[in-house]
């Protein structure tokens, strides 16, 4: 499986974490002091990399969580059809179709970067 185990204390804004079995990117991280009883806790807010859904978790800082290993790859646009683009990976020359993000304007031969995790891909 393309994921590794880490402690909550090792997470930070901008890094990834699995929540509800979905890879998420962290955009907020805050901690609470432990007091005389209990342990220090961290709260993580993150957004699903592929489904864009906001999620949060609150755990002791020494709790273990899964961190997805998301690969960042280079690709080239082969063709554009409506909201989809056909992309060729520049390392493997494999081609596949991806949804074009709303704010992107892609043309054939444009070079792009995309994220890949267990068969899911997203242009960044």
């Amino acid at each position, binding site marked *: 499986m393309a994921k590794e185990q880490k402690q909550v204390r090792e997470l930070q804004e901008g890094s990834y974490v699995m929540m509800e079995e979905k890879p998420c990117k962290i955009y*907020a991280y805050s901690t609470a*002091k432990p*007091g005389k009883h209990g342990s220090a806790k961290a*709260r993580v807010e993150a957004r699903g990399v592929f489904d864009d859904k*906001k999620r*949060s978790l*609150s755990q002791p800082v020494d709790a273990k969580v899964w961190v997805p290993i998301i690969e960042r790859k280079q690709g080239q646009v082969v063709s554009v059809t409506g909201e989809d683009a056909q992309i060729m990976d520049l390392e493997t020359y494999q081609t596949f179709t991806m949804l074009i993000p709303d704010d992107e304007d892609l043309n054939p031969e444009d070079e792009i970067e995309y994220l890949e995790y267990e068969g899911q891909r997203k242009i960044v």
Partner: protein
Amino acid sequence: MFPGAIADREVADYVIVGAPLDISTSFQPGTRFGPNRIRRFAESFDDYDRRTDQFFTDLRVHDAGDIRAWDDAPEYSEWLAGSVRDAVWDDAVPLILGGEHTVTAAGVTGVEPDVFVCLDAHLDLRREYDGNEWSHATITRRVLDKLDVDEAIILGARTGSPEEWERAESDDVTVVEPEAVADWNPDFDDESVYLSADIDAADPAFAPGTGTKEPFGLTSREMRDVVRAVAPYTDGFDVVEVNDRDDGQAASLAAKLLREFVFSHAATDD
């Protein structure tokens, strides 16, 4: 647990969070005991509300307990805001039990309202108090200047510094003096509203258990009527500045205002 707040978190429409912050209280401290005191003095209230014909235990209120406070207001506020946001994301209305008024920053951060309605004896428009920007005496200023709220309506305010009164003259602030509160009616369209009830808006005769008492205040019925009127528009609520230095008057008023809020809000949803 707040009496009657028996719903599980997963199905809750209202989530109570205790925020016993007590670090900048400038005169009589004790707000660290506020949340539990409010819960305690809610024990004697009937489950049934005749006006709205509802039972409190039917309204899916969950008590998430207290978020333990430590002596760093910005850090604590950030942490507390996270809990508030969790409730908002689950389509529940957060209800914060203070704690000094500073905790309202977390409520507003989590709810992100357009309008801030506040029952308060004080303008709380200071930029800082004793050099502290996170003092309880600065909360309405923080809400306006730092938390992107468009408008503040301060009901029952009767004291402030010259600088605060000057800030209050800006277009984004409406001050309703105590004598005019009974005739005030909310006028909101689709705006998201956050309602904060500082218990010192009430006359000290009604709520002596608070840190900075200010006579010539509101009656408990005037407080109640504001809560009833604003609740239907409101996405987040808090009641703050209750301490343990009375025989339970301030805490029972706070508990009753929270229940009035829930009854009125729930009756509108139906």
